């Protein structure tokens, strides 16, 4: 499989995004598999942000730091990417970045700025670069011009045509460079790409929520979770749903509880700091047995941490959030397709079991996009509610632990929900016997949840010596390495459901070495395995610098551990 990594780097506000958008769209429409992930600074102007675009002949969703083509939009980018640059890297940049590149690197001057000026508008620079990059992969010229024209359609016919011409000039320049420097980036097209759609993690979560019947979204802005709220609010009118920015996360989570209580399907999107404020609300949902679905997009903590970077450090927070004991589900989607499907499923599970469900994503997953198979759309959602008669009791001590949930106004009865310990009607009690009976009733639901928990995915060598344990957004990267080094008797178990935890004791016992791979400082998932399964994972590969685990990082770590 041929694959190339193009990295665009520039200051915030320089139009890197425009180039990225045009390039990925043209490439995708031309039949290439595309993947893009960004790393950016927590600032509105300046700084250095980069996007890594992977172009391949087959679906490729793992993260690689290698740079085949680097396009700096500003000085400083080359140095920022220095560790990712190798002899095979080609830098395409304005002449004045040559010094920064140094002598040992292939530097090819591109006069996009001058070309843009000659074409009459400095702003054409992004279109020129898009055209240039498209030509390196022999992307379809017609698709390029059509896309550029549509993009600038509302700017007037002239500008639209001029941009399209600029893109073609760029394309020509690219062809010239390829010839002159003898460059070839041959990637086969794949007809099946046309059937796929492009989603980023945030869109997948948003659309998955809608497919799960979400109709009330409450949030307070916090990176990287806000994108989901923005996606949903932009669809609110059309989808006839309520999206409200509340005054803080405490209000957001409680509003969601109020929405479920009233018969809606609430959804909360937040990040670590915001979720920390929601802990008491989690507990209320647990006690009052009100469904709750929270999307927790992780970024490095503690406190404000690194607002725009990635981590898997909120597992413990999500696992233990809320005082007292009550059942919950924790999902951690492995990829974009799962971000959609598990979010959809979360609504049904929350409703059916009247519990909080937390979807743990992270900045990396939320901001990454690639082409995926069109996800399934449901036929119908099941409202797990009952019509109340005059004798209705909200918290019947049932065998399964699930007490049929009513909604105010539905039927002739009434319901009392309560965050205090309560009797079957929902009225406050302090009786010892009832207290125990109610706690036991609620916790019984955990037994069912355990039976229904998602099994982890196994990949790699069936006769493994070394077993990697990973979870969440690292799936494709770990899988890529495990498959590459299959002959080293390497395998992996990857979890998309964190809690309740599947029993994987048999897998663990068969391994000579078990290594946890996580993006936090202490190995929070390994600790959970130890607690739940009494199996201590001594070896851990932990990354906690705010950057996603890459193929290269994993290879290096595994080599150092003597595995590769």
């Amino acid at each position, binding site marked *: 499989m041929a694959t190339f990594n193009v990295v665009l780097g520039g200051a915030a506000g320089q139009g890197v995004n425009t180039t990225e958008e045009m390039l990925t*769209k043209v490439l*995708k*429409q031309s039949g290439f598999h595309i993947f893009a992930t960004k790393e950016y600074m927590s600032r509105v102007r300046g700084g250095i942000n980069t996007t890594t675009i992977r172009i391949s002949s087959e679906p490729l969703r793992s993260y690689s730091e290698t740079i085949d083509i680097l396009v700096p939009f500003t000085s400083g980018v080359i140095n920022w990417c220095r560790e990712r640059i190798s002899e095979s890297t080609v830098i395409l940049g304005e002449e004045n970045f040559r010094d920064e590149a140094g002598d040992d690197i292939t530097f090819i001057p591109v006069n996009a700025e001058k070309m843009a000026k000659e074409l009459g508008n400095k702003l054409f620079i992004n279109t020129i670069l898009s055209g240039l990059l498209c030509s390196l992969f022999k992307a379809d010229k017609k698709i390029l011009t059509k896309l550029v024209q549509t993009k600038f359609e509302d700017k007037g016919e002239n500008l639209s045509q001029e941009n399209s011409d600029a893109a073609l000039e760029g394309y020509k320049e690219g062809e010239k460079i390829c010839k002159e420097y003898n460059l070839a980036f041959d990637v086969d097209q794949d007809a099946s790409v046309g059937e796929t*759609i*492009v989603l980023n993690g945030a869109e997948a979560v948003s*659309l998955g929520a809608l*497919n799960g*019947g*979400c*109709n*009330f979204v*409450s949030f307070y802005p916090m990176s990287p979770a806000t994108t989901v709220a923005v996606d949903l609010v932009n669809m609110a*009118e*059309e*989808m*006839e749903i*309520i999206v409200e920015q*509340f*005054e*803080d996360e*405490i*209000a*957001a989570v*409680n*509003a*969601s*509880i*109020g*929405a479920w*209580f*009233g*018969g*809606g*399907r*609430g959804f909360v999107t937040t990040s670590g700091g915001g979720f920390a404020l929601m802990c*008491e*609300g989690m507990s*209320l949902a647990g006690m*009052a047995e009100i469904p709750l679905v929270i999307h927790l997009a992780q970024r490095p903590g503690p406190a404000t941490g690194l607002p725009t970077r990635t981590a898997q450090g909120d597992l413990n927070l999500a696992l233990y959030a809320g005082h007292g004991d009550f059942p919950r589900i924790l999902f951690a989607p492995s990829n974009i397709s799962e971000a959609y499907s598990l979010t959809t499923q979360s609504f049904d599970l929350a409703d059916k079991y009247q519990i909080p469900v937390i979807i743990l994503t992270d900045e990396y997953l939320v901001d990454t996009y690639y082409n995926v198979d*069109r996800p399934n*759309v*449901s036929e119908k*959602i099941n409202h797990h*509610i009952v019509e109340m008669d005059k004798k209705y009791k909200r918290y019947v001590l049932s065998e399964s632990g699930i007490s049929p949930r009513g*909604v*105010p*106004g539905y039927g*002739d*009865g*009434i*319901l*009392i*929900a*309560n*965050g*205090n310990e309560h009797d079957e009607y*929902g*009225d*406050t*009690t302090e009786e010892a016997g009832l207290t125990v009976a109610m706690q036991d009733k609620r916790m019984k639901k955990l037994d069912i949840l355990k039976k229904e928990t998602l099994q982890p995915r196994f990949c790699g060598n069936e006769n493994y010596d070394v077993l990697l344990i990973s979870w969440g957004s690292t799936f494709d990267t770990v899988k890529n390495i495990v498959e590459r080094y299959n002959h080293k008797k390497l395998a992996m178990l990857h979890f998309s459901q964190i809690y309740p935890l599947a029993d994987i004791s048999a897998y663990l016992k068969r391994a000579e070495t078990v290594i946890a791979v996580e993006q936090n400082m202490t190995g929070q998932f390994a600790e959970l395995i130890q607690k739940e399964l009494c199996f201590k994972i001594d070896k851990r590969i932990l990354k906690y610098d705010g950057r996603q685990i890459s193929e290269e990082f994993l290879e290096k770590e595994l080599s150092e551990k003597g595995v590769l």
Partner: protein
Amino acid sequence: MAKQAKLFDSKRPKSKDISWCPGCGNFGIRNELMDVLEEMQYTPKDIAVISGIGQAGKIPHYLNANGFHTLHGRSLPIATATKAVNPSLEVIAVGGDGDMFAEGGNHLLHAIKRNPNITVIVHNNQVYGLTKGQGSPTSMTGMKTTTQPWGVYDEPMNSIAMLISQGCSFVARAFVGHKDETKEIIKNAILHKGFSYVEIFQPCVTFNKINTYMWYKNNTYFLHEHDVTDKEQAMIKAFEKDPYPLGIFYINKEKPCFDNHLPPYKTNNTPLYKRQPNFDKIREKLNYRSF
């Protein structure tokens, strides 16, 4: 004469054992609320009483109506959302002065601004009742409490002025001792479309020995010839004390109401629990993302 059973009086087993102290002002508020709801011809299934934590917050257990006894300070976002997804419900949020002004202060501030079509009743006893007598945001200067043993040094919060200044669309104050007037105020609050705020002076006979029934009687008077649409006048009245004015201070019928801006009800008023998502639209959205 045999007492007629009240429609909103709860007959659930635990409702009989009301845990308020004998003589507590909360009894009066409960009675007034039950009467108003019945007089307005509501049935229990039409009403949702959403309370915070405190003595006031216990009220759902003593009413025959939908109820949600939530968390300290958090009744307003919950009530706002319940009304938003289930618009035919009449939603009443209830809490004490600590609940609404301290723990839930930020929510109150923003409920004013958001202006959802709900009613909030604040049982203002100027003390923390449930937690046994600590000072509250409205405790009077000099009042000795369990946690301010030398007396409260600062000035009580002027909630009415705060609400009017922020443009709350319905602001009223009552004293539980005036049964008919209080009922009238609650009724108007429920009828008002928007966020209706009713603060009720409620003697705590156990922990507040200053603000007694007698004190409230002697230190309050009813607003008369007051134009409720005149914000400036309302503000002037809000700063009056000794005696404190009672009645409706301010009404703004023009203030944009949260519930009027909700996309689900642009075409019909079906509560959300009776709906299915528009799956065709979701399919359309997914198609749109084919790049």
